[in-house]
């Protein structure tokens, strides 16, 4: 379905959420705004009675002040020319005594506001409470009333003060609240009204669904310009201007705009933008409001680029950018929604022991075998599969603006719900490796197997100081590889990650380990058909893989010989970069440097030596050259190293080995 039709449908499917404020984790409120409405922050709340008499007023701060206000097309895109909102607005429009307190104004904002409100009151869509507001505002005493109430403050000349400057006599008095909520002077305060009518529980006009609906009907009835709508295909009142502020409240970019005074966009066959396309007011409002709501609710924004994924049956879905750990945690939350987590934590003995030390948590035993991990991923994704929703579909949309003012849909996919989940599962079970760089939700270092988050891929490929611009570009390029069939990973990203992983000397150990495991995941995905696994592959005779194994053995041998206290990098690690470029020559250097350690370990080195011989024997003679290694050597390195440590751990478990080896393991895992 076309993007706007899709969004309009999303609006209609979530009609029950319209006008309801929800709170995000960070405390910010968002809502699916009704048609013909927008949001504003009100500073002053005026309470009236049913007859249009002033009763009281309050100052509202930013959190309390978020208000859904009725809005016309003209008002929505007002700039310097005064165009009033229909019901709530700034003092400039609402106060009849504005000139008296603030000086001259351009145009006739108050009269325009009054005329607009009167038209609503005179129509058949009027409401008792709106009438009351009209009656009150008509008197033109708003600022005077607010000054009398102590909300607004005047200076000696009887004008509104620009800023708070306590007179010497009242120095002790506190700064009035109105100056705390306003960024500029008092005349820019935004006013909203509440009308208290005995027997009516909802005094707040901006929360009154009935008033909202009446305005929608009133405004729709005033639209007379009809045309064919390119979204619905019906003949409906058309929108002249379309909404901005889609990504955030300060965003002026529009998805639909018309600017052929400068660029060759539609002129030629068409003379006016209207000839080129027309969109109905309802479709535009619903679609844009739904998009804003989705972005607020579940969008990810990086450097202005917005990624949003939603389903038409259920909004919440696993994100393509999550790593496997987040995916599993989200699925778990879905599962035990009301389970008391605090209770669990109280009895988690490990939680106390590990909090202070930074060392790695032991990996869950089953986690490293590929089958067990694939099961985990499947379980996590299956949590989002529901019966009887085979026809549900999901939409992935990426928005970005190249220039301020115009926004573009830079990626759009409309997929079947099941297909989407299948592809996510495929991604997490093909671009995977064992990672140790993440903390879980209880803030413990954890080992997880699966796909890394796209953001982490960006840091692995471009370094931890990669700019947001780079990260967002990479995220958009990786996205198709996750959710489309048969897309290969971009070569440059894999190569870049492999190159960075081959240069451990330039990084802190934890950073290198992170880069290494992510590079392994990418290489594994690239060589998907070969079916490599975290577990050591002793069968393969791939040249790069074998060289990687040899490097790992050399590393482990030297580490053991150095002992736990010695933190310096082994020869294998130091020569890694050169080794990847010229393995034949560099190996002879590493091997000769290894001799003292072999000598130091004496008979303890026998196992490693025989292992080296074994691996070396598998290498074909003609492969022992200086041809640069492919990314596969990282897999060989990781798997061999992992194997050497875990096999010792297993020995430890049977009680036959020395403690030194176990500690070695810790040194490696330490981040």
């Amino acid at each position: 379905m076309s993007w706007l039709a899709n969004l309009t449908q999303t609006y209609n499917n979530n009609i029950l959420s319209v006008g309801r404020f929800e709170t995000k984790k960070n405390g910010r409120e968002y809502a699916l705004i009704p048609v013909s409405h927008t949001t504003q922050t009100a500073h002053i709340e005026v309470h009236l009675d049913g007859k249009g008499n002033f009763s009281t007023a309050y100052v509202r701060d930013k959190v309390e002040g978020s208000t859904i206000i009725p809005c016309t097309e003209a008002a929505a895109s007002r700039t310097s020319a005064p165009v009033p909102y229909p019901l709530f607005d700034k003092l400039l429009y609402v106060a009849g005594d504005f000139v008296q307190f603030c000086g001259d104004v351009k145009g006739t904002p108050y009269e325009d506001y009054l005329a607009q409100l009167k038209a609503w009151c005179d129509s058949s869509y009027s409401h008792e409470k709106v009438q009351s507001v009209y009656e009150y505002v008509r008197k033109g005493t708003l600022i005077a009333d607010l000054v009398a109430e102590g909300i607004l403050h005047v200076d000696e000349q009887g004008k509104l003060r620009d800023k708070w400057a306590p007179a010497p006599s009242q120095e002790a008095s506190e700064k009035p609240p109105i100056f705390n909520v306003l960024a500029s002077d008092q005349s820019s305060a935004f006013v909203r009204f509440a009308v208290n009518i005995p027997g009516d529980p909802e005094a707040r006009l901006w929360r009154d669904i009935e008033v909202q609906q009446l305005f929608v009907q009133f405004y729709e009835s005033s639209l007379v310009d009809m045309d064919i709508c390119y979204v619905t295909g019906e003949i409906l009142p058309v929108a002249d201007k379309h909404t901005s502020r889609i990504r955030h409240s300060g965003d002026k970019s529009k998805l639909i705009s018309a600017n052929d005074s400068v660029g060759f966009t539609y002129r030629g066959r068409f003379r006016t933008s209207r000839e080129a396309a027309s969109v109905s007011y309802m479709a535009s409002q619903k679609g844009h409001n739904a998009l804003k709501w989705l972005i607020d609710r579940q969008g990810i924004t990086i450097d202005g680029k917005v990624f949003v994924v939603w389903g038409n049956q259920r909004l919440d879905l696993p994100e393509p950018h999550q790593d496997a750990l987040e995916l599993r945690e989200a699925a778990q939350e879905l599962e035990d929604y009301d389970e008391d987590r605090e209770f669990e934590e109280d009895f988690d003995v490990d939680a106390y022991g590990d909090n202070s030390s930074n060392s790695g948590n032991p990996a869950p035993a089953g986690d490293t075998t590929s089958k067990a991990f694939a099961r985990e991923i499947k379980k996590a994704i299956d949590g989002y599969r529901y019966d009887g929703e085979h026809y549900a579909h999901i939409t992935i949309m990426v928005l970005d603006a190249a220039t301020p003012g115009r926004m573009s849909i830079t990626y759009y996919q409309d997929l079947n719900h099941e297909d989407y989940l299948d592809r996510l599962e495929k991604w997490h079970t093909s671009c995977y490796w064992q990672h140790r760089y993440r903390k879980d939700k209880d803030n413990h270092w954890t080992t997880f197997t699966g796909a890394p988050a796209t953001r982490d891929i960006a840091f692995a490929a471009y370094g931890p100081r990669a700019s947001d611009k780079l990260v967002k570009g990479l995220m958009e390029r990786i996205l198709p590889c996750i959710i489309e069939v048969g897309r290969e990973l971009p070569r440059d990203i894999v190569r870049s990650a492999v190159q960075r992983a081959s240069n451990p000397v330039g990084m802190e150990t934890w950073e290198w380990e992170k880069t290494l495991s992510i590079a392994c995941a990418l290489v594994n995905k690239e060589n998907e058909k070969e079916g490599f696994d975290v577990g050591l592959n002793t069968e393969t005779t791939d040249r790069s893989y074998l060289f990687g194994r040899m490097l790992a053995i050399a590393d482990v041998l030297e580490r053991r010989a150095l002992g736990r206290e010695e933190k310096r990098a082994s020869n294998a690690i130091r020569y890694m970069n050169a080794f990847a470029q010229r393995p034949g020559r560099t190996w002879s250097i590493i091997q000769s440097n290894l001799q003292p350690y072999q000598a130091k370990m004496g008979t303890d080195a026998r196992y490693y030596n025989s292992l080296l011989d074994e691996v070396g024997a598998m290498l074909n003679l003609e492969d022992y050259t200086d041809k640069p290694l492919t990314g596969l050597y990282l897999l060989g390195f990781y798997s061999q190293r992992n194997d050497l440590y875990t096999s010792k751990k297993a020995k430890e478990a049977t009680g036959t080995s020395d403690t030194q080896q176990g500690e070695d393991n810790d040194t490696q895992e330490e981040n």
Partner: protein
Amino acid sequence: MRNQIEFKVYGNYALFTDPMTKLGGEKFSYQVPTYQALKGIVESIYWKPTIIWFVDEVRIVKPIQTESKGMRPIEYNGGNTLAYYTYLKDVCYQVKAHFRFNPHREDLAYDRNEHKHHNIAKRAVNVGGRRDIFLGTRECQAYVEPCLFGEGEGAYDKVPEIDFGTMVHGMNYPDETGRNEREVRLWRAKMYNGIIRFDRPEECTLVRSIGEGTSKAFHTDNMKSVDELHDEWFEGRDTV
């Protein structure tokens, strides 16, 4: 079917601009080609004012994927601006189309030799079209090859129905309608098992008028007749 051609058209990118996004200049492609875009491709393969091409069906062979590119469109004053165009990526379509004689071209009645036009059209498909082919916009170069409509596997063979909603169908020009008016047709596009069957242009009920126009006059002086062209291409060989 008589007068029918079948062909495959494919390319790395396609941009069938959604008119809503065109107004501002950040072009975004429709998910599937419009009737008019395919008609343009058929006309690039072979066209003469004597005939009107009708696109019957299109089969979407590859999955619908999008990719955006940064563009530097030229402005009237000669400068540049920056925009993101979103293209369809790696597309392949199978198209079935047929021609009829243009009833509003009585002046070209002498050029109506169905058999010869059909043979020339089939030959033009075999050689990849008489003029260059592009998918929606000029920068999306495409290639035409003969094919059997429906052959091979398609990405949407097993998808019973996809509704693309209201889309532009095409444009009405004076030389094909007989009215001195330009019009835009809209329709509700639906795909069944990967195949979109287009409504006939005259069956489209959603039509917007967008201005006046007239048709160009053709005669023997500015157009080569089908007999001449047929002789030139087939040199009297049997073409059946």
